Structure formats: structure tokens, C-alpha cells
């Protein structure tokens, strides 16, 4: 147990070792988790490093800025970054590692690189913007319709701020005599409480949503004010989603804050915000007056147009009537002309008809006469033939009768030696008609014989050969 050491001895050896091993200074990146300035002006800080999620502290060290250094370093940092040197900031500082036997390990801060913090602020700012964008609310307030005359304004400001006074002054003493109604909702406009304070004020205004036309968030005065709260997510999100248009006049020198971005309208100063409202009212009135002029002009035009229309209508009457009358006259004239000639055709046709009739009379009469005459001639011609035929026929008949008579005349038979025997004036044709002793008379061609029958004989007919 030779190597027993007193605490002091050990701390001395640690100190020697550290002094030997960490002779130079180092640029270290850390977050200020605690910051205290004592009466002598020395600044004592707790520097920490958090894990990637920012939840857990993974390293911690004490830091000291001696007052003579701090007096220069603080304003340098604050003017460069526009941020108060305070807890919560991420900083890059030049440190030497110190070990004090009594106080232990600490880092003496000799210098600071504000541009790192600036970059860090910008990075965080971008993160906030991205989040707002991702949530789709960044443009929400901008999309709210601003009343044409934002006459009733809820103001969020510090009561005592010069900026607020300027704003009210500018608003109420506008050169046009417009009336504005403003109501102050006081809030801290800087420092750690600012964000919550402003959000609270917004919540209050929200209760009177219907009453106000717009919200003005204004701030002005302090040159080195820390405006970090206006880059905070919660405030920006509240502003973005606020149901009334928010007009900001925060007074940034350089980049606009995230709240400015989410607000409906961003003005640089409170005075500018007041001017904005006045100009809106002025624009409105100008628009009204413009409309008035247009109404006057259009009304006059309308009346002139109507006058012109009436004149046009009037001017149409006569030509139209005249045209009708002319057309009617022409039609009449055409009818008249036609009429003057048409009857001649009519009468001519009738005349022609009459001529045709008289011609037809002559021709049909002549035809009739010819036919009758011809008929008579035919009769004359026919009668001779008919009569002669008749005569011929009669003569023939006569001749036939004469021939028959010649043939039948008994004289001609007797002439050839035949005779006719009669008994009691009966012609005897058979021997059986007579008997012996009868007296018969015989007619000859010339003369007659009377005789007595001696006998009779039956003999065949001489002529027919019959018996």
C-alpha cells in the first residue's frame, strides 16, 4: 500500500497530467444549459451535450468566462447573432482545460465563434419552417381574407413599448380621418417568457374572434433585443393557424422571423403596420371612389346609349315604312301592267275560239252535205239494179210456169198417138174398170171416138211393165 496518495496529491497529479496533456486551447461545441453571472461579472456556465434526439445529456462540463473576457465577448456575440447570450444556445467556444484541486474540472472560455451559433440558429429555424410546411399550416394565415377595411384591430405588444405608442399615434392620427378601433393585449415581447405570453394573448383574442378584423403583433425599441422567440415553433404555429389575419411589425433588422413568415402580412415596424391599416382603408375608399366614377360614367354612357338607341329606332321607321310603301307600289304597278295586257289574251283567245267554231261549222256542214248527197246517189244507183233483178226474177218465174204448162198440157201426149178413154166421164186407166158391152169414149189428138167393149184383157202395164 505504498502507493497511497492524499486527495490533494491525487488531484495534483491529475492537474499535472491534464496540464501536460491539454496544453493548448480547444474549439468545443456545446449547449449552454445553465448560466450565472456573479457580482464580479464572472460568468459561470454549465455546458452540456445531448444525444441526437436531444433528450438525454451525454456530456457535461463547467465553463467559466472571466469578467474581463465576458465584458467583450457578450456584446460581440449578441450584436453578431442578435441573440441574448443565455441558456439554451448552442455555441462554439475556445476553451482551455483547467483543473483545480479544490473546484475540480472546468473549461475556461477565452473566445467564442458567433457564426457557429448563427448557423445553428438558421438550421433550427429551417427545421421549424420545414415542420410547419410538413404540417401544411405555414400558409394558413396568409390565406385568410383580410377585411377590406381592417378597422378593428387586436394589438399584441408590450404596454410600455415605444413601438406601441408609435403604432397608436400613427393609426389614430392618420391624415384621412379614418376611425380605427384598437385593443391592446399586452405580452412580453422578448425573453424566455415571450413565446408563452404572446400565445396567451392570442388565445384571449381568439375569444373575440368575431369582433376584430385583424391582429397586430408589434414590438419596437431595444436595439439588441433577442427575437429568438419569434422563430419558435409553437408561436409560429399559433400564428399560422389563428383565425384572424395577423400583421406583424416585429422590427427585424435582417432575416424575417418564422412568425413573420406565417403571419398574414409582415411589416417591418409598428408604424409600418399602422400605415398598412390606414392604407387598406384608403385603398378601400379609393376603390369606392373609383367605382363611383365608373358608375357615373357608365350611367351617363347608358343614358347616352339609350338616347342613341332611340334615335336609331326613330331613324329606322321612315326608311322601313318607305320601303314597304315602295314595294307595295311596285307590286301594284306590276299587277297593273299585267292587268293592262292580260285581257287582250283573254279576248284574243275567245276570238280564236269563235273563228274555230265558224270553221268547224263550215266543215261539219259540208261533211254532212256530202254524206247526204252520196247517200242519195247510192239510192239512185241501187234502185235500177234492184228493179231489174226483180223483173228478171219475175220473168224467170213466168218462163218456168210456161214450161210447166207445156209439159202438163195433154194435147202434147195425144199428138203422139196416145188417147184418153173415158167411161161415164171417168178416165179409164185399167181394163178392170170396164166390162163387155160398156160404152166408152176415146179422145184423140183430133176428134173423139165412141165405142162398145167386146172384151177386156188383163195385161201388164205397157209403160211400167207391171202386171
Amino acid at each position: 500500500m505504498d502507493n497511497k496518495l492524499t486527495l490533494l496529491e491525487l488531484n495534483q497529479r491529475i492537474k499535472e497530467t491534464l496540464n501536460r496533456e491539454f496544453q493548448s486551447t480547444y474549439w468545443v461545441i456545446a449547449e449552454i444549459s445553465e448560466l450565472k453571472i456573479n457580482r464580479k461579472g464572472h460568468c459561470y456556465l454549465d455546458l452540456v451535450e445531448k444525444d441526437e434526439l436531444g433528450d438525454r445529456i451525454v456530456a457535461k462540463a463547467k465553463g467559466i468566462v472571466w469578467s474581463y473576457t465576458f465584458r467583450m465577448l457578450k456584446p460581440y456575440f449578441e450584436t453578431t447573432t442578435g441573440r441574448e447570450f443565455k441558456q439554451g444556445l448552442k455555441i462554439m467556444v475556445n476553451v482551455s482545460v483547467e483543473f483545480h484541486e479544490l473546484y475540480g474540472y472546468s473549461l475556461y472560455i477565452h473566445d467564442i465563434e458567433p457564426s457557429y451559433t448563427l448557423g445553428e440558429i438558421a438550421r433550427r429555424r429551417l427545421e421549424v419552417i420545414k415542420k410547419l410546411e410538413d404540417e401544411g399550416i405555414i400558409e394558413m394565415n396568409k390565406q385568410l381574407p383580410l377585411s377590406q377595411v381592417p378597422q378593428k384591430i387586436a394589438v399584441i405588444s408590450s404596454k410600455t413599448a415605444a413601438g406601441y405608442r408609435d403604432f397608436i399615434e400613427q393609426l389614430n392620427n392618420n391624415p384621412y380621418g379614418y376611425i380605427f378601433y384598437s385593443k391592446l393585449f399586452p405580452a412580453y415581447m422578448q425573453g424566455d417568457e415571450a413565446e408563452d405570453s404572446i400565445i396567451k394573448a392570442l388565445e384571449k383574442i381568439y375569444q373575440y374572434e368575431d369582433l376584430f378584423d385583424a391582429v397586430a403583433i408589434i414590438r419596437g425599441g431595444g436595439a439588441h433585443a433577442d427575437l429568438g422567440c419569434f422563430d419558435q415553433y409553437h408561436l409560429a404555429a399559433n400564428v399560422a393557424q389563428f383565425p384572424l389575419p395577423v400583421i406583424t411589425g416585429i422590427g427585424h433588422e435582417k432575416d424575417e422571423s418564422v412568425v413573420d413568415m406565417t403571419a398574414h402580412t409582415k411589416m417591418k415596424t409598428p408604424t409600418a403596420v399602422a400605415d398598412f391599416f390606414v392604407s387598406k382603408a384608403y385603398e378601400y375608399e379609393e376603390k369606392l371612389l373609383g367605382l363611383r366614377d365608373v358608375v357615373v360614367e357608365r350611367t351617363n354612357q347608358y343614358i347616352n346609349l339609350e338616347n342613341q338607341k332611340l334615335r336609331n329606332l326613330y331613324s329606322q321607321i321612315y326608311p322601313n315604312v318607305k320601303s314597304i310603301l315602295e314595294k307595295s307600289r311596285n307590286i301594284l304597278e306590276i299587277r297593273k301592267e299585267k292587268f293592262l295586257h292580260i285581257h287582250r289574251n283573254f279576248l284574243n283567245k275567245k276570238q280564236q275560239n269563235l273563228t274555230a267554231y265558224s270553221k268547224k261549222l263550215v266543215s261539219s256542214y259540208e261533211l254532212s252535205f256530202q254524206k247526204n248527197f252520196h247517200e242519195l246517189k247510192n239510192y239512185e244507183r241501187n234502185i235500177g239494179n234492184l228493179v231489174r233483178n226483180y223483173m228478171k226474177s219475175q220473168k224467170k218465174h213466168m218462163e218456168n210456169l210456161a214450161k210447166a204448162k207445156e209439159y202438163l198440157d195433154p194435147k202434147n201426149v195425144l199428138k203422139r198417138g196416145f188417147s184418153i178413154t173415158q167411161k161415164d166421164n171417168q178416165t179409164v186407166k185399167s181394163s178392170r174398170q170396164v166390162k163387155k158391152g160398156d160404152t166408152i169414149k176415146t179422145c184423140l189428138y183430133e176428134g173423139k171416138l165412141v165405142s162398145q167393149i167386146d172384151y177386156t184383157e188383163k195385161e201388164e202395164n205397157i209403160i211400167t211393165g207391171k202386171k
Partner: protein
Amino acid sequence: MAKEKQQLKYGDAIEEIEKILKQIENEELDVDDLTSKVKRVSELLSLCKKKLRTTEEEVENILKDIEAE
């Protein structure tokens, strides 16, 4: 007969002739009658001939007139 000539129609005469001739043909006549009937026929024929001749002359004259026209 002269009177008859005037009175007896040609047609009647022809009819009588035809009637007598039929009787002769049918031997409905006595020889004595026969002679007289034949005689009658001869007379009638003669009459008719005369009538025909006369008529023909007259008619021809008229026809000549007609045809001459």
C-alpha cells in the same frame, strides 16, 4: 177479160196458174176441164207476160229518168 186484165193482179194470176198446174199434175182434173184449165193457164200467162212487159217498159222509163239525173 179486158176488165179482168185491169182487175186481176199479177200476183193473183200467178197464183192461179200455179194452182191449176198443181191440179193438172195431180190429175185432179177431168179431161174436159183439163182443156179449159189449160186454156185458162194460157190466158193468164199471156196476161202476166203482158203485164211484165208493160211494167218493164214503164219502169225502165222511170229508171232512165233517175239515172239520167
